[in-house]
């Protein structure tokens, strides 16, 4: 019965609510995460033979190089590292 209560708790948690994790701290914003379709096709041999990196069912999943896992962009973990955009300044 324990697994049923765990499943019920997970189902309750699945109802759309405001997430505790801020958008900026999710995998989609992490520097270790990549989900562009052509990259996913290169990293996943055979994907483009009978499916595609551009398929809607793939949603925005991507590859995390820290965990070596294929994850949704909304996932969260404790090893989040914000992506850095470099601003090049003119040197005088």
């Amino acid at each position: 019965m324990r697994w049923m209560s765990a499943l019920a708790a997970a189902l309750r948690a699945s109802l759309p609510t405001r997430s505790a994790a801020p958008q900026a701290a999710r995998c989609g914003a992490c520097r270790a995460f990549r989900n562009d379709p052509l990259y996913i096709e290169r990293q996943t041999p055979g994907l483009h033979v009978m499916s595609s990196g551009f398929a809607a069912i793939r949603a925005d999943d991507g590859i995390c190089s820290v965990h070596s896992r294929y994850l949704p962009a909304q996932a969260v973990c404790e090893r989040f590292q914000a992506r850095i955009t470099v601003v090049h300044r003119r040197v005088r």
Partner: protein
Amino acid sequence: MSTPAQTVSGAQPEPITPRIAAGAWYRTEDSWAIALGVGLVTAAVLALVNGSSIKWLAVTPQKWSSPDQLGRQFSANAGRYLALFVLWISLFGLSTRALGIRTLQFLPSFALLFAVSAAIIGLGAWEQADRYNLEPPLVALAAGLLISNTIGLPRWLDAGFRVEYYVKTGIVLLGATLPLTLIVSAGPVAIVQAALVSLTTFGVIYGVATRLGLDRRLAATLGAGGAVCGVSAAIAVAGAVGAKKEHGPIAITIVIFWAIVMIFVLPLVARALQLPTGVAGAWIGTSEFADAAGFAAAQSYGGYAGHVPGISGSADAAVNAFTLMKVIGRDLWIGIWAFVLSIVAVSRWESTGVRSPTSVWEIWRRFPKFVIGFVITSAIISILTSAYSVADFNKVLKPDLVNPIKSLRTWAFTFCFLSIGLTTRWRDLASAGSRPFLAFTSGVIVNVLLGFLLSVIVFGNYWAALGSP
């Protein structure tokens, strides 16, 4: 989808690769397949309403008995073929550019694809083609496999071999030839049959895989690949459960292997048993693993109708039954599979250090949205045809509207079948390992037998009637 970024002025430069918004609507082939398919059907309807037709453009080779005849056909219709080529390359070229595929690579690749497809469709129109089993889908697949695994083609040519895009465009066009009433009436039977087979197949693969000691996330990825919609289901569930990076490619290798085997085996066995086209289509829809592969098998079998003694039903019945079973019965539910498995992964399986979302939005996020286009084109033509009598339908709508759309569909599917062969390079696929292969193969055996039982014996009369005139 925009991604938030932290700006650090003067930070040390680091290699940052461009990140493409994977989830935006214009970044999915589904959206473009809907746009192209619905756009072409709408154009065909508007032409008809204005007293014209797109049949001049939707050209395919007619029956021929000598190479000279075929040559004369091509030269007499050169302008039409050129116009069709310009239409396809413009539509696919612009849309793949929006997807982020290099146009300079796509254009020559597609030109090659079109030329070889024309030759294959032409070969299929040979009067003796049935005698030598030269069904265009099988020829396209075999030719592609032979080329890619022997002489090989430059990798950059893959830019134009977009299997999934072509099959989705073909399915949206197919909707125009499948009445909405048939989808509504046959849908529940397809869903019940597919649900029985999908749940059993998943259970067998998952059960055998975990007993063989495989990771549960790999077991679920393999199970979804065998039970739902092949490679697409495997990659969707791999993401939903947070599988290891190598799990997806393992499942994909095995799915591709069995899908290609089944393209040849299922029509062959069905032919030996002389199954009616509707029944064979339902069986293929239940037991084939990928949409593109299944359409190749179903279209091949449909080609036997009226040509191979003992096989009853119409050519369309095989494709229609397959579509109902595969698209409506199985593909549609991938979001629910992913949602349920994501909950199980979070609540029951060992932690991975990553917390994946378990929202009900998962169902919509992973919904195969091209199906919306399939329903829209079906609705457009169903509404239009409801105003016509059967006699007027056969006299006006069939030659001026339905048949040209079917011709465009034939082209889209041929691009797809040829692309499967041209992109399947066995040496490039991930090594699957014996245990995953054994687990998946157990599911294949159960799936094929149960699919046969339900399609031929339990619902046999129903699927056979689908092909009756």
